[in-house]
């Protein structure tokens, strides 16, 4: 009967909401600071942000000959 399945669905929804309500939350100030810190700490390794020297760019052909 659709009434029974609606009831079951609603019960599940309430259980799920209880679970989600119980999540432990940290302060936004802490979350934001840590996001910012992560970005700044890893900036120098981020090729799309700081660029890649031509010689070490695997997607570019070297312009000059390398002598090994």
């Amino acid at each position, binding site marked *: 009967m659709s009434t029974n399945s609606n009831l079951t669905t609603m019960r599940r929804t309430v259980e799920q909401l209880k*679970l*989600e309500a119980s999540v432990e*939350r940290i302060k*936004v*100030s*802490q979350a934001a600071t840590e996001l910012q810190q992560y970005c700044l700490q890893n900036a120098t*390794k981020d090729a799309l*942000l700081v660029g890649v020297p031509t010689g070490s760019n695997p*997607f570019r052909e070297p312009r000059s000959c390398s002598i090994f």
Partner: protein
Amino acid sequence: MGEMEQLRKEAESLKDEITAARKAVQDATLQDTVSGTVVVSRVQLKTRKTLRGHLAKIYAMHWSTDSKLCVSASQDGKLIVWDSYTTNKVNAIPLKSSWVMTCSYAPSGNMVACGGLDNMCSIYNLKAKDGNVKVMRELAAHTGYLSCCRFLSDAEIITSSGDCTCVLWDIETGTQKTVFAGHTGDCMSLAVPLDFKTFISGACDFTAKLWDIREGQCRQTFSGHESDINAIAFFPNGNAVITGSDDATCKLYDLRADQELITYQDSSIMCGVTSIAPSLSGRLILAGYDDFNCNIWDSLKAERVGVLAGHDNRVSCIGVTADGMACCTGSWDSFLKIWN
């Protein structure tokens, strides 16, 4: 009827509780926190390689963990594995069904997977002894299209589907280990973090959900978008999630604060976001749009700092290499472009 009304009231009260709990930790905003940081200077990436070979719209691409090989899926009925350094095609795999919507490269590099309107996820072994790439498994059980798939290992893969569920599969036996139900709209996209303990999904019910893989439960639900979420990715530190939606915006949700921290939008952008990927440090967010472009956002300052213009049709997929050296865009114009 009594219990139904009671449950409805309880549900409303729990939703209010969640809203209040989220507000209670809002002691700052991301904007305030980064007010002392300068916006990144204009990012101008150039096309370094164009991967030509597909004969129809490209719907998906995924980088191998080696940051060199990548796989792309097109409705010309082919999966192509490319060496992005040389533009050579390593494998051109003909598919049984040409209506492919997603593809994935296993972290080991041993397999690729794809699926689409056939409602199945097909796994291909790239390292068969005889050198021929064959279907290894066909994972069938979804009752809707396969929108996304991501390997956890050579033994397990997670799929998202138009049937509103995500599924964890045992590849060896071809069976469903866990069904993740809860979305009330087509699941469009999923992403797995580096620890493989959780995954996130974005759906046509306008929400993103964080799932515990072993418990099989949804832990958190994020709302705010005003239309379908088409793309989702983890911020590189695993503590936040970025989403792209048909509502023309991208959002960043923090997992530990359990809420949206910022929206990436511009009044001049009125078309849907199809794909999204963060740069290595997370400072840049690259998002593909229906208007043929890809916008680059400063993730902290929420300002547009660059554009990748070069495709002649919708950008359907985007991916940044694990080593952060380049990003790849795939388009309905049948080409893939590598940028850095």
